[in-house]
Protein backbone atom coordinates (compact mmCIF):
# COMPACT_ATOMS: atom_id res chain seq x y z
CA UNK A 1 0.00 0.00 0.00
CA UNK A 2 2.98 2.27 0.29
CA UNK A 3 5.91 3.15 -1.85
CA UNK A 4 8.96 1.13 -0.85
CA UNK A 5 11.21 2.97 1.51
CA UNK A 6 14.71 2.82 0.19
CA UNK A 7 17.37 2.84 2.83
CA UNK A 8 20.35 4.88 1.69
CA UNK A 9 23.08 2.73 0.24
CA UNK A 10 25.52 2.28 3.07
CA UNK A 11 28.97 2.70 1.61
CA UNK A 12 31.85 0.63 2.82
CA UNK A 13 34.30 3.49 2.22
CA UNK A 14 37.21 1.12 1.76
CA UNK A 15 38.48 3.47 -0.95
CA UNK A 16 38.96 6.23 1.63
CA UNK A 17 40.85 3.79 3.79
CA UNK A 18 43.19 2.90 0.93
CA UNK A 19 43.78 6.57 0.17
CA UNK A 20 44.60 7.32 3.81
CA UNK A 21 46.97 4.33 3.94
CA UNK A 22 48.85 5.59 0.88
CA UNK A 23 49.10 8.92 2.68
CA UNK A 24 50.52 7.13 5.73
CA UNK A 25 53.22 5.40 3.66
CA UNK A 26 54.09 8.75 2.08
CA UNK A 27 54.42 10.36 5.53
CA UNK A 28 56.64 7.52 6.74
CA UNK A 29 58.84 7.93 3.66
CA UNK A 30 59.14 11.70 4.15
CA UNK A 31 60.05 11.44 7.82
CA UNK A 32 62.68 8.79 7.16
CA UNK A 33 64.17 10.88 4.34
CA UNK A 34 64.45 13.77 6.80
CA UNK A 35 66.10 11.48 9.36
CA UNK A 36 68.57 10.06 6.84
CA UNK A 37 69.30 13.57 5.62
CA UNK A 38 70.11 14.79 9.10
CA UNK A 39 71.97 11.78 10.48
CA UNK A 40 72.88 9.38 7.72
CA UNK A 41 75.17 9.46 4.76
CA UNK A 42 72.89 11.62 2.67
CA UNK A 43 70.26 10.02 0.47
CA UNK A 44 70.24 6.25 0.77
CA UNK A 45 67.68 3.75 -0.46
CA UNK A 46 66.70 3.03 3.18
CA UNK A 47 63.58 5.26 3.25
CA UNK A 48 62.40 3.62 0.06
CA UNK A 49 62.76 0.12 1.50
CA UNK A 50 61.07 1.23 4.69
CA UNK A 51 58.11 2.72 2.81
CA UNK A 52 57.84 -0.36 0.59
CA UNK A 53 57.80 -2.69 3.61
CA UNK A 54 55.07 -0.64 5.27
CA UNK A 55 53.10 -0.47 2.02
CA UNK A 56 53.26 -4.25 1.65
CA UNK A 57 52.19 -4.97 5.23
CA UNK A 58 49.44 -2.36 5.39
CA UNK A 59 48.30 -3.31 1.88
CA UNK A 60 47.81 -6.96 2.82
CA UNK A 61 45.90 -5.93 5.94
CA UNK A 62 43.77 -3.56 3.88
CA UNK A 63 42.82 -6.41 1.52
CA UNK A 64 42.00 -8.61 4.51
CA UNK A 65 39.73 -5.89 5.93
CA UNK A 66 38.03 -5.61 2.53
CA UNK A 67 37.39 -9.35 2.58
CA UNK A 68 36.48 -9.99 6.20
CA UNK A 69 35.12 -6.73 7.59
CA UNK A 70 34.02 -4.70 4.56
CA UNK A 71 31.94 -2.22 6.57
CA UNK A 72 34.57 -1.58 9.24
CA UNK A 73 35.44 1.97 10.16
CA UNK A 74 37.56 3.42 7.33
CA UNK A 75 39.66 5.77 9.45
CA UNK A 76 40.63 3.57 12.38
CA UNK A 77 43.26 1.43 10.68
CA UNK A 78 45.04 4.27 8.81
CA UNK A 79 45.29 6.31 12.03
CA UNK A 80 46.86 3.36 13.82
CA UNK A 81 49.12 2.66 10.84
CA UNK A 82 50.38 6.25 10.97
CA UNK A 83 51.38 5.93 14.62
CA UNK A 84 53.04 2.59 13.94
CA UNK A 85 54.96 3.85 10.89
CA UNK A 86 56.10 6.99 12.66
CA UNK A 87 57.07 4.92 15.68
CA UNK A 88 59.32 2.61 13.66
CA UNK A 89 60.92 5.62 11.94
CA UNK A 90 61.67 7.25 15.31
CA UNK A 91 63.02 4.00 16.76
CA UNK A 92 65.29 3.76 13.73
CA UNK A 93 66.34 7.33 14.38
CA UNK A 94 67.29 6.44 17.95
CA UNK A 95 69.17 3.35 16.66
CA UNK A 96 71.18 5.74 14.48
CA UNK A 97 71.90 7.97 17.45
CA UNK A 98 73.09 5.01 19.50
CA UNK A 99 75.67 4.02 16.89
CA UNK A 100 79.03 5.76 16.62
CA UNK A 101 78.98 8.39 13.83
CA UNK A 102 81.38 6.40 11.63
CA UNK A 103 79.33 3.24 12.07
CA UNK A 104 76.01 4.76 11.10
CA UNK A 105 76.10 3.61 7.49
CA UNK A 106 75.65 0.08 8.87
CA UNK A 107 72.41 0.99 10.64
CA UNK A 108 69.30 0.63 8.53
CA UNK A 109 65.78 -0.63 8.97
CA UNK A 110 66.91 -4.23 9.01
CA UNK A 111 69.16 -3.79 12.03
CA UNK A 112 68.65 -2.99 15.66
CA UNK A 113 65.41 -2.14 17.36
CA UNK A 114 63.72 -0.84 14.22
CA UNK A 115 63.94 -4.25 12.55
CA UNK A 116 62.50 -5.93 15.64
CA UNK A 117 59.70 -3.41 15.74
CA UNK A 118 58.97 -4.06 12.05
CA UNK A 119 58.88 -7.78 12.75
CA UNK A 120 56.48 -7.22 15.66
CA UNK A 121 54.36 -5.03 13.38
CA UNK A 122 54.06 -7.99 11.02
CA UNK A 123 53.08 -10.27 13.92
CA UNK A 124 50.56 -7.69 15.13
CA UNK A 125 49.00 -7.35 11.69
CA UNK A 126 48.78 -11.12 11.29
CA UNK A 127 46.95 -11.29 14.62
CA UNK A 128 44.66 -8.43 13.59
CA UNK A 129 43.75 -10.35 10.45
CA UNK A 130 43.33 -13.51 12.56
CA UNK A 131 40.91 -11.66 14.85
CA UNK A 132 38.86 -10.58 11.82
CA UNK A 133 38.89 -14.08 10.32
CA UNK A 134 38.18 -16.07 13.48
CA UNK A 135 35.75 -13.74 15.24
CA UNK A 136 33.03 -13.28 12.67
CA UNK A 137 30.61 -11.86 15.22
CA UNK A 138 31.87 -10.04 18.27
CA UNK A 139 28.94 -11.37 20.32
CA UNK A 140 30.49 -14.84 20.19
CA UNK A 141 33.19 -13.50 22.53
CA UNK A 142 30.62 -13.12 25.28
CA UNK A 143 30.40 -16.90 25.47
CA UNK A 144 34.03 -17.15 26.55
CA UNK A 145 33.88 -14.23 28.93
CA UNK A 146 34.59 -16.12 32.17
CA UNK A 147 37.36 -18.10 30.48
CA UNK A 148 38.86 -14.88 29.17
CA UNK A 149 38.47 -13.25 32.58
CA UNK A 150 40.39 -16.08 34.21
CA UNK A 151 43.04 -16.02 31.48
CA UNK A 152 43.36 -12.27 31.97
CA UNK A 153 43.79 -12.53 35.72
CA UNK A 154 46.23 -15.40 35.21
CA UNK A 155 48.33 -13.41 32.77
CA UNK A 156 48.30 -10.52 35.18
CA UNK A 157 49.38 -12.71 38.08
CA UNK A 158 52.08 -14.77 36.35
CA UNK A 159 54.90 -12.22 36.67
CA UNK A 160 54.19 -11.86 40.38
CA UNK A 161 54.44 -15.61 40.89
CA UNK A 162 57.55 -16.17 38.80
CA UNK A 163 60.93 -15.66 40.44
CA UNK A 164 62.23 -12.13 40.01
CA UNK A 165 65.03 -13.32 37.73
CA UNK A 166 62.40 -14.28 35.16
CA UNK A 167 60.02 -11.40 35.61
CA UNK A 168 61.83 -8.29 36.79
CA UNK A 169 63.17 -5.64 34.46
CA UNK A 170 64.18 -2.25 35.88
CA UNK A 171 62.32 -2.78 39.12
CA UNK A 172 58.94 -3.66 37.65
CA UNK A 173 57.91 -7.31 37.74
CA UNK A 174 55.66 -7.26 34.72
CA UNK A 175 57.56 -9.51 32.34
CA UNK A 176 57.82 -13.14 31.41
CA UNK A 177 61.31 -13.85 30.15
CA UNK A 178 62.35 -17.08 28.53
CA UNK A 179 64.84 -18.11 25.88
CA UNK A 180 65.83 -14.58 24.96
CA UNK A 181 62.22 -13.50 24.57
CA UNK A 182 60.45 -11.23 26.95
CA UNK A 183 56.77 -10.44 26.85
CA UNK A 184 54.57 -8.23 28.99
CA UNK A 185 51.49 -10.37 29.67
CA UNK A 186 49.68 -7.39 31.17
CA UNK A 187 49.11 -5.91 27.71
CA UNK A 188 47.17 -9.01 26.64
CA UNK A 189 45.47 -9.32 30.02
CA UNK A 190 44.03 -5.85 29.44
CA UNK A 191 42.02 -7.01 26.42
CA UNK A 192 40.85 -10.28 28.01
CA UNK A 193 39.73 -8.45 31.12
CA UNK A 194 37.84 -5.79 29.12
CA UNK A 195 35.91 -8.56 27.32
CA UNK A 196 35.10 -10.10 30.69
CA UNK A 197 34.02 -6.77 32.24
CA UNK A 198 31.76 -6.08 29.24
CA UNK A 199 29.87 -9.34 29.45
CA UNK A 200 29.74 -9.31 33.25
CA UNK A 201 28.34 -5.80 33.34
CA UNK A 202 25.77 -6.50 30.62
CA UNK A 203 24.49 -9.37 32.75
CA UNK A 204 24.54 -7.49 36.03
CA UNK A 205 23.80 -3.93 35.11
CA UNK A 206 20.17 -3.97 36.13
CA UNK A 207 21.10 -4.88 39.67
CA UNK A 208 23.93 -2.39 39.72
CA UNK A 209 21.86 0.47 38.38
CA UNK A 210 18.41 -0.06 39.87
CA UNK A 211 18.87 -0.93 43.53
CA UNK A 212 20.10 2.17 45.25
CA UNK A 213 19.93 4.46 48.20
CA UNK A 214 19.75 8.21 47.75
CA UNK A 215 22.25 10.22 49.75
CA UNK A 216 22.75 13.93 49.15
CA UNK A 217 21.03 13.85 45.78
CA UNK A 218 23.19 11.09 44.34
CA UNK A 219 22.07 7.49 44.03
CA UNK A 220 24.50 5.25 45.82
CA UNK A 221 24.45 1.49 45.27
CA UNK A 222 23.66 -0.91 48.08
CA UNK A 223 26.57 -2.21 50.08
CA UNK A 224 26.41 -5.72 48.69
CA UNK A 225 26.51 -4.48 45.11
CA UNK A 226 29.87 -2.89 45.80
CA UNK A 227 31.45 -6.36 45.73
CA UNK A 228 32.81 -6.35 42.17
CA UNK A 229 34.25 -2.84 42.53
CA UNK A 230 36.04 -3.81 45.70
CA UNK A 231 37.40 -6.94 44.00
CA UNK A 232 38.70 -4.91 41.05
CA UNK A 233 40.21 -2.43 43.47
CA UNK A 234 41.95 -5.13 45.48
CA UNK A 235 43.22 -6.82 42.32
CA UNK A 236 44.76 -3.59 41.07
CA UNK A 237 46.31 -2.94 44.49
CA UNK A 238 47.79 -6.45 44.43
CA UNK A 239 49.31 -5.72 41.03
CA UNK A 240 50.76 -2.56 42.49
CA UNK A 241 52.20 -4.33 45.52
CA UNK A 242 53.60 -7.45 43.92
CA UNK A 243 54.57 -6.18 40.50
CA UNK A 244 55.49 -2.62 41.44
CA UNK A 245 53.63 -1.46 38.38
CA UNK A 246 51.80 1.79 39.01
CA UNK A 247 50.66 2.18 35.41
CA UNK A 248 48.87 -1.16 34.94
CA UNK A 249 47.28 -0.85 38.34
CA UNK A 250 45.82 2.55 37.50
CA UNK A 251 44.83 1.39 34.01
CA UNK A 252 42.87 -1.66 35.17
CA UNK A 253 41.01 0.13 37.91
CA UNK A 254 40.21 3.09 35.66
CA UNK A 255 38.87 0.84 32.90
CA UNK A 256 36.65 -1.01 35.35
CA UNK A 257 35.18 2.13 36.89
CA UNK A 258 34.47 3.75 33.53
CA UNK A 259 32.85 0.60 32.13
CA UNK A 260 30.71 0.40 35.26
CA UNK A 261 29.72 4.02 34.70
CA UNK A 262 28.92 3.40 31.03
CA UNK A 263 26.86 0.31 31.87
CA UNK A 264 24.81 1.86 34.67
CA UNK A 265 24.86 5.57 33.73
CA UNK A 266 25.33 6.39 37.38
CA UNK A 267 27.70 9.15 38.40
CA UNK A 268 27.99 7.68 41.86
CA UNK A 269 30.28 4.95 40.51
CA UNK A 270 32.73 7.59 39.34
CA UNK A 271 32.68 9.21 42.78
CA UNK A 272 33.11 5.87 44.53
CA UNK A 273 35.91 5.01 42.10
CA UNK A 274 37.69 8.29 42.71
CA UNK A 275 37.40 7.88 46.46
CA UNK A 276 38.71 4.31 46.34
CA UNK A 277 41.51 5.47 44.06
CA UNK A 278 42.44 8.31 46.40
CA UNK A 279 42.38 5.96 49.38
CA UNK A 280 44.43 3.30 47.58
CA UNK A 281 46.91 5.86 46.29
CA UNK A 282 47.38 7.28 49.78
CA UNK A 283 47.87 3.86 51.37
CA UNK A 284 50.32 2.87 48.63
CA UNK A 285 52.19 6.12 49.14
CA UNK A 286 52.55 5.64 52.87
CA UNK A 287 53.56 1.98 52.60
CA UNK A 288 55.80 1.64 49.58
CA UNK A 289 59.13 3.28 49.01
CA UNK A 290 58.95 3.02 45.23
CA UNK A 291 55.68 4.93 45.15
CA UNK A 292 57.13 7.64 47.41
CA UNK A 293 60.10 7.81 45.07
CA UNK A 294 57.91 8.37 42.05
CA UNK A 295 55.91 11.07 43.78
CA UNK A 296 59.04 12.82 45.04
CA UNK A 297 60.54 12.81 41.54
CA UNK A 298 57.30 14.17 40.17
CA UNK A 299 57.08 17.00 42.68
CA UNK A 300 60.75 17.97 42.73
CA UNK A 301 62.52 16.57 39.66
CA UNK A 302 65.25 19.20 39.78
CA UNK A 303 66.29 18.32 43.31
CA UNK A 304 68.24 15.37 41.99
CA UNK A 305 68.50 16.35 38.34
CA UNK A 306 71.49 14.15 37.64
CA UNK A 307 70.26 11.18 39.63
CA UNK A 308 66.69 10.03 40.08
CA UNK A 309 65.19 13.01 38.31
CA UNK A 310 67.54 12.71 35.33
CA UNK A 311 65.07 11.04 32.97
CA UNK A 312 62.16 13.39 33.53
CA UNK A 313 64.39 16.48 33.61
CA UNK A 314 66.00 15.54 30.30
CA UNK A 315 62.58 14.84 28.83
CA UNK A 316 61.41 18.30 29.90
CA UNK A 317 64.55 19.88 28.41
CA UNK A 318 63.87 17.92 25.24
CA UNK A 319 60.31 19.21 25.03
CA UNK A 320 61.59 22.74 25.66
CA UNK A 321 64.27 22.37 22.98
CA UNK A 322 61.62 21.33 20.49
CA UNK A 323 59.70 24.58 20.96
CA UNK A 324 56.86 25.10 18.53
CA UNK A 325 58.03 23.34 15.38
CA UNK A 326 60.77 21.05 16.67
CA UNK A 327 64.39 20.64 15.73
CA UNK A 328 63.41 18.48 12.77
CA UNK A 329 63.49 14.69 12.62
CA UNK A 330 67.06 13.56 13.28
CA UNK A 331 68.35 16.97 14.31
CA UNK A 332 67.66 16.87 18.06
CA UNK A 333 69.32 14.93 20.86
CA UNK A 334 66.42 12.83 22.16
CA UNK A 335 68.79 9.93 22.89
CA UNK A 336 69.94 11.72 26.04
CA UNK A 337 66.71 10.67 27.73
CA UNK A 338 66.97 7.10 29.04
CA UNK A 339 64.42 4.82 27.33
CA UNK A 340 63.73 7.45 24.69
CA UNK A 341 62.40 4.77 22.34
CA UNK A 342 59.87 3.19 24.68
CA UNK A 343 58.52 5.01 27.72
CA UNK A 344 59.74 8.41 26.59
CA UNK A 345 59.02 8.36 22.87
CA UNK A 346 56.60 11.23 23.46
CA UNK A 347 59.56 13.36 24.55
CA UNK A 348 61.37 12.38 21.33
CA UNK A 349 58.39 13.51 19.28
CA UNK A 350 58.11 16.74 21.27
CA UNK A 351 61.77 17.50 20.72
CA UNK A 352 62.01 16.69 17.03
CA UNK A 353 58.53 17.57 15.77
CA UNK A 354 57.78 20.29 18.32
CA UNK A 355 54.50 21.13 19.97
CA UNK A 356 53.01 21.33 16.48
CA UNK A 357 53.85 17.71 15.67
CA UNK A 358 53.10 16.38 19.15
CA UNK A 359 49.66 17.97 19.01
CA UNK A 360 49.01 16.24 15.68
CA UNK A 361 49.90 12.90 17.29
CA UNK A 362 47.60 13.58 20.24
CA UNK A 363 44.83 14.53 17.82
CA UNK A 364 45.38 11.20 16.04
CA UNK A 365 44.92 9.41 19.38
CA UNK A 366 41.82 11.47 20.06
CA UNK A 367 40.40 10.48 16.67
CA UNK A 368 41.12 6.78 17.34
CA UNK A 369 39.35 6.98 20.70
CA UNK A 370 36.55 8.99 19.09
CA UNK A 371 36.02 6.34 16.42
CA UNK A 372 35.93 3.67 19.12
CA UNK A 373 33.29 5.56 21.11
CA UNK A 374 31.37 6.29 17.92
CA UNK A 375 31.35 2.54 17.25
CA UNK A 376 30.04 1.99 20.77
CA UNK A 377 27.19 4.42 20.07
CA UNK A 378 26.30 2.90 16.72
CA UNK A 379 26.49 -0.82 17.42
CA UNK A 380 23.13 -2.29 18.36
CA UNK A 381 23.86 -4.85 21.08
CA UNK A 382 24.78 -3.82 24.60
CA UNK A 383 27.73 -6.19 24.86
CA UNK A 384 29.26 -4.64 21.74
CA UNK A 385 28.58 -1.16 23.10
CA UNK A 386 30.34 -1.84 26.39
CA UNK A 387 33.21 -3.71 24.74
CA UNK A 388 33.89 -0.94 22.21
CA UNK A 389 33.59 1.76 24.87
CA UNK A 390 35.96 -0.15 27.18
CA UNK A 391 38.56 -0.76 24.46
CA UNK A 392 38.44 2.87 23.32
CA UNK A 393 38.63 4.19 26.84
CA UNK A 394 41.55 1.93 27.73
CA UNK A 395 43.55 3.54 24.97
CA UNK A 396 42.52 7.04 26.06
CA UNK A 397 43.52 6.38 29.66
CA UNK A 398 46.81 4.79 28.66
CA UNK A 399 47.76 7.76 26.46
CA UNK A 400 46.77 10.15 29.24
CA UNK A 401 48.85 8.31 31.83
CA UNK A 402 51.91 8.11 29.56
CA UNK A 403 51.82 11.63 28.14
CA UNK A 404 50.86 13.03 31.55
CA UNK A 405 53.84 11.23 33.08
CA UNK A 406 56.35 12.40 30.48
CA UNK A 407 55.15 16.00 30.65
CA UNK A 408 55.16 15.93 34.48
CA UNK A 409 51.44 16.45 34.83
CA UNK A 410 51.11 13.32 36.95
CA UNK A 411 53.69 11.00 38.55
CA UNK A 412 55.52 8.89 36.01
CA UNK A 413 54.27 5.34 35.55
CA UNK A 414 55.75 2.77 33.26
CA UNK A 415 53.16 2.34 30.52
CA UNK A 416 53.85 2.16 26.81
CA UNK A 417 52.57 4.68 24.31
CA UNK A 418 50.24 2.58 22.14
CA UNK A 419 51.68 1.88 18.65
CA UNK A 420 54.57 4.34 19.03
CA UNK A 421 56.73 2.82 21.75
CA UNK A 422 59.33 0.19 21.09
CA UNK A 423 58.02 -3.10 22.45
CA UNK A 424 56.48 -6.16 20.90
CA UNK A 425 53.86 -7.05 23.49
CA UNK A 426 52.34 -3.61 23.49
CA UNK A 427 52.28 -3.36 19.69
CA UNK A 428 50.83 -6.82 19.13
CA UNK A 429 48.23 -6.47 21.90
CA UNK A 430 47.14 -3.09 20.60
CA UNK A 431 46.72 -4.51 17.10
CA UNK A 432 44.47 -7.20 18.56
CA UNK A 433 42.52 -4.43 20.29
CA UNK A 434 42.14 -2.54 17.01
CA UNK A 435 41.11 -5.79 15.32
CA UNK A 436 38.28 -6.14 17.82
CA UNK A 437 37.24 -2.52 17.31
CA UNK A 438 37.24 -3.04 13.52
CA UNK A 439 35.08 -6.15 13.96
CA UNK A 440 32.57 -4.30 16.15
CA UNK A 441 32.52 -1.27 13.83
CA UNK A 442 31.85 -3.63 10.93
CA UNK A 443 28.80 -4.94 12.77
CA UNK A 444 27.76 -1.40 13.66
CA UNK A 445 27.94 0.00 10.14
CA UNK A 446 26.69 -3.03 8.22
CA UNK A 447 23.30 -2.25 6.71
CA UNK A 448 20.53 -4.43 8.11
CA UNK A 449 19.84 -7.54 6.06
CA UNK A 450 17.29 -6.94 3.30
CA UNK A 451 13.75 -7.05 4.54
CA UNK A 452 12.28 -9.04 1.69
CA UNK A 453 10.70 -11.71 3.83
CA UNK A 454 7.22 -10.40 4.48
CA UNK A 455 6.20 -10.98 8.04
CA UNK A 456 3.26 -9.72 10.02
CA UNK A 457 4.06 -6.30 11.43
CA UNK A 458 4.00 -7.57 14.99
CA UNK A 459 6.79 -10.06 14.23
CA UNK A 460 8.90 -7.60 12.32
CA UNK A 461 12.57 -8.05 13.23
CA UNK A 462 13.55 -5.66 15.89
CA UNK A 463 15.88 -5.82 18.78
CA UNK A 464 14.21 -4.88 22.02
CA UNK A 465 16.53 -3.29 24.51
CA UNK A 466 14.95 -2.29 27.76
CA UNK A 467 16.21 1.13 28.74
Amino acid at each position, binding site marked *: *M*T*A*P*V*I*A*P*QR*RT*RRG*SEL*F*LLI*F*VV*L*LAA*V*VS*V*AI*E*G*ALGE*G*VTPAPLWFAATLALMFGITHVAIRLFAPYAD*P*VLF*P*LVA*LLNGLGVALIHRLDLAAAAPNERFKVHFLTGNASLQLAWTAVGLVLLIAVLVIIRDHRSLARYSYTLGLVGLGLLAVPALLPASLSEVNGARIWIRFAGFSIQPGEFAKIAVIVFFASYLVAKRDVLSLASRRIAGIDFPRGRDLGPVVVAWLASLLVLIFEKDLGSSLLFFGIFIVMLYVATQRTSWLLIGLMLFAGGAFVAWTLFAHVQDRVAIWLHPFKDANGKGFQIVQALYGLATGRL*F*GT*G*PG*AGRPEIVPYANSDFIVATIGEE*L*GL*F*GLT*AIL*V*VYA*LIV*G*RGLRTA*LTVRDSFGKLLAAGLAFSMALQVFVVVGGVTKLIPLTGLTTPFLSYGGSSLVANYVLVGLLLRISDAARRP*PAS*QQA*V*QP*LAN*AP*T*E*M*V*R*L
Partner: protein
Amino acid sequence: MPEVVLAVTRIGFLALLWVFVFVAVGVIRSDLFGNRKTRQPPPVRRASAPPPPRPAKVKRGRTAKMLVVTEGTLAGTQISLGALPITIGRANDSTLIITDDYASSKHARISPRDGQWLVEDMGSTNGTYLDRAKVVGPTPVPLGAPIRIGKTVLELRS
Protein backbone atom coordinates in the same frame (compact mmCIF):
# COMPACT_ATOMS: atom_id res chain seq x y z
CA MET B 1 71.88 16.57 1.82
CA PRO B 2 71.68 20.33 1.17
CA GLU B 3 70.38 22.34 4.10
CA VAL B 4 67.52 23.81 2.06
CA VAL B 5 66.19 20.41 1.01
CA LEU B 6 66.39 19.23 4.59
CA ALA B 7 64.46 22.26 5.87
CA VAL B 8 61.80 21.78 3.20
CA THR B 9 61.47 18.08 4.11
CA ARG B 10 61.04 18.92 7.80
CA ILE B 11 58.44 21.61 7.29
CA GLY B 12 56.81 19.49 4.61
CA PHE B 13 56.50 16.59 7.01
CA LEU B 14 54.81 18.67 9.71
CA ALA B 15 52.47 20.19 7.14
CA LEU B 16 51.65 16.77 5.65
CA LEU B 17 51.03 15.37 9.13
CA TRP B 18 48.35 17.95 9.72
CA VAL B 19 46.97 17.54 6.20
CA PHE B 20 46.60 13.85 7.02
CA VAL B 21 44.75 14.68 10.23
CA PHE B 22 42.37 16.96 8.36
CA VAL B 23 41.81 14.44 5.56
CA ALA B 24 40.97 11.83 8.22
CA VAL B 25 38.57 14.27 9.87
CA GLY B 26 37.06 14.93 6.43
CA VAL B 27 36.43 11.21 5.93
CA ILE B 28 34.80 11.04 9.36
CA ARG B 29 32.69 14.09 8.54
CA SER B 30 31.43 12.74 5.25
CA ASP B 31 30.78 9.44 7.02
CA LEU B 32 28.56 11.18 9.55
CA PHE B 33 26.63 13.49 7.29
CA GLY B 34 26.80 11.67 3.97
CA ASN B 35 28.70 12.94 1.00
CA ARG B 36 26.31 15.15 -0.97
CA LYS B 37 27.93 14.50 -4.30
CA THR B 38 27.75 10.75 -4.28
CA ARG B 39 25.20 8.11 -5.06
CA GLN B 40 21.80 9.52 -4.38
CA PRO B 41 19.30 7.21 -6.03
CA PRO B 42 17.93 9.64 -8.63
CA PRO B 43 14.33 8.43 -9.07
CA VAL B 44 13.40 8.81 -5.44
CA ARG B 45 13.68 12.38 -4.27
CA ARG B 46 15.41 12.03 -0.96
CA ALA B 47 15.18 14.55 1.76
CA SER B 48 18.90 14.65 2.36
CA ALA B 49 19.39 16.73 -0.79
CA PRO B 50 16.68 19.36 -0.41
CA PRO B 51 16.04 21.86 -3.17
CA PRO B 52 16.17 25.53 -2.16
CA PRO B 53 13.19 26.25 0.07
CA ARG B 54 9.98 26.96 -1.77
CA PRO B 55 6.55 27.74 -0.46
CA ALA B 56 4.99 24.44 0.50
CA LYS B 57 2.84 23.17 -2.29
CA VAL B 58 -0.06 20.85 -1.91
CA LYS B 59 0.45 17.51 -3.53
CA ARG B 60 -2.36 15.42 -4.92
CA GLY B 61 -5.01 17.26 -2.96
CA ARG B 62 -4.89 15.14 0.15
CA THR B 63 -2.56 16.28 2.91
CA ALA B 64 -2.14 14.89 6.35
CA LYS B 65 -3.97 16.90 8.98
CA MET B 66 -3.70 14.62 11.93
CA LEU B 67 -1.36 12.21 13.64
CA VAL B 68 -3.25 9.34 15.25
CA VAL B 69 -1.95 6.77 17.70
CA THR B 70 -3.46 3.44 16.69
CA GLU B 71 -1.77 1.01 19.05
CA GLY B 72 -0.01 1.17 22.39
CA THR B 73 -0.83 2.77 25.71
CA LEU B 74 -1.79 6.07 24.07
CA ALA B 75 -4.08 4.46 21.45
CA GLY B 76 -6.76 6.89 20.33
CA THR B 77 -4.70 10.02 20.91
CA GLN B 78 -4.83 12.50 18.05
CA ILE B 79 -2.58 15.44 17.34
CA SER B 80 -3.44 18.10 14.79
CA LEU B 81 -0.60 18.80 12.43
CA GLY B 82 0.46 22.39 11.88
CA ALA B 83 3.63 23.84 10.47
CA LEU B 84 5.83 22.73 13.35
CA PRO B 85 7.66 19.42 13.61
CA ILE B 86 6.41 16.88 16.11
CA THR B 87 8.86 15.15 18.40
CA ILE B 88 8.09 11.79 19.89
CA GLY B 89 9.78 10.20 22.87
CA ARG B 90 9.79 9.71 26.60
CA ALA B 91 11.37 13.10 27.28
CA ASN B 92 9.02 15.60 28.90
CA ASP B 93 9.59 18.21 26.23
CA SER B 94 8.41 15.92 23.42
CA THR B 95 5.25 16.91 21.56
CA LEU B 96 3.98 13.36 22.00
CA ILE B 97 5.24 11.88 25.26
CA ILE B 98 4.99 8.12 25.08
CA THR B 99 5.43 5.93 28.13
CA ASP B 100 6.85 2.91 26.39
CA ASP B 101 9.71 0.89 27.83
CA TYR B 102 11.10 0.37 24.36
CA ALA B 103 11.12 4.01 23.34
CA SER B 104 14.07 6.35 23.82
CA SER B 105 13.73 9.77 25.41
CA LYS B 106 14.16 11.48 22.07
CA HIS B 107 12.97 8.81 19.71
CA ALA B 108 11.72 10.22 16.44
CA ARG B 109 10.62 13.43 14.76
CA ILE B 110 7.95 14.00 12.18
CA SER B 111 8.38 17.25 10.32
CA PRO B 112 6.77 18.92 7.31
CA ARG B 113 8.74 19.69 4.18
CA ASP B 114 7.37 20.68 0.80
CA GLY B 115 3.87 19.60 1.69
CA GLN B 116 5.02 16.19 2.79
CA TRP B 117 5.63 14.84 6.25
CA LEU B 118 8.98 13.23 6.87
CA VAL B 119 9.75 10.87 9.71
CA GLU B 120 13.27 10.58 11.02
CA ASP B 121 14.78 8.57 13.79
CA MET B 122 16.64 10.68 16.36
CA GLY B 123 19.17 8.06 17.30
CA SER B 124 16.83 5.83 19.25
CA THR B 125 17.98 2.56 20.71
CA ASN B 126 15.32 0.36 19.20
CA GLY B 127 14.74 2.21 15.98
CA THR B 128 11.71 3.62 14.24
CA TYR B 129 9.91 1.55 11.64
CA LEU B 130 7.82 2.84 8.75
CA ASP B 131 5.63 0.01 7.64
CA ARG B 132 8.17 -2.81 7.88
CA ALA B 133 11.30 -0.90 6.99
CA LYS B 134 13.62 0.63 9.51
CA VAL B 135 13.78 4.39 9.12
CA VAL B 136 17.36 5.34 8.37
CA GLY B 137 17.23 8.90 7.08
CA PRO B 138 14.34 11.36 6.80
CA THR B 139 11.66 9.37 4.97
CA PRO B 140 8.38 10.65 3.52
CA VAL B 141 5.36 9.17 5.28
CA PRO B 142 2.39 8.27 3.09
CA LEU B 143 -1.11 8.65 4.53
CA GLY B 144 -2.15 5.64 6.56
CA ALA B 145 1.28 4.02 6.71
CA PRO B 146 2.03 2.70 10.20
CA ILE B 147 4.98 4.26 12.02
CA ARG B 148 6.11 1.93 14.77
CA ILE B 149 8.00 3.13 17.84
CA GLY B 150 8.50 0.41 20.42
CA LYS B 151 5.00 -0.91 21.09
CA THR B 152 3.30 2.24 19.85
CA VAL B 153 2.01 2.58 16.29
CA LEU B 154 1.14 5.93 14.75
CA GLU B 155 -0.25 6.96 11.40
CA LEU B 156 -1.02 10.10 9.46
CA ARG B 157 -4.61 10.82 8.46
CA SER B 158 -6.12 13.51 6.33
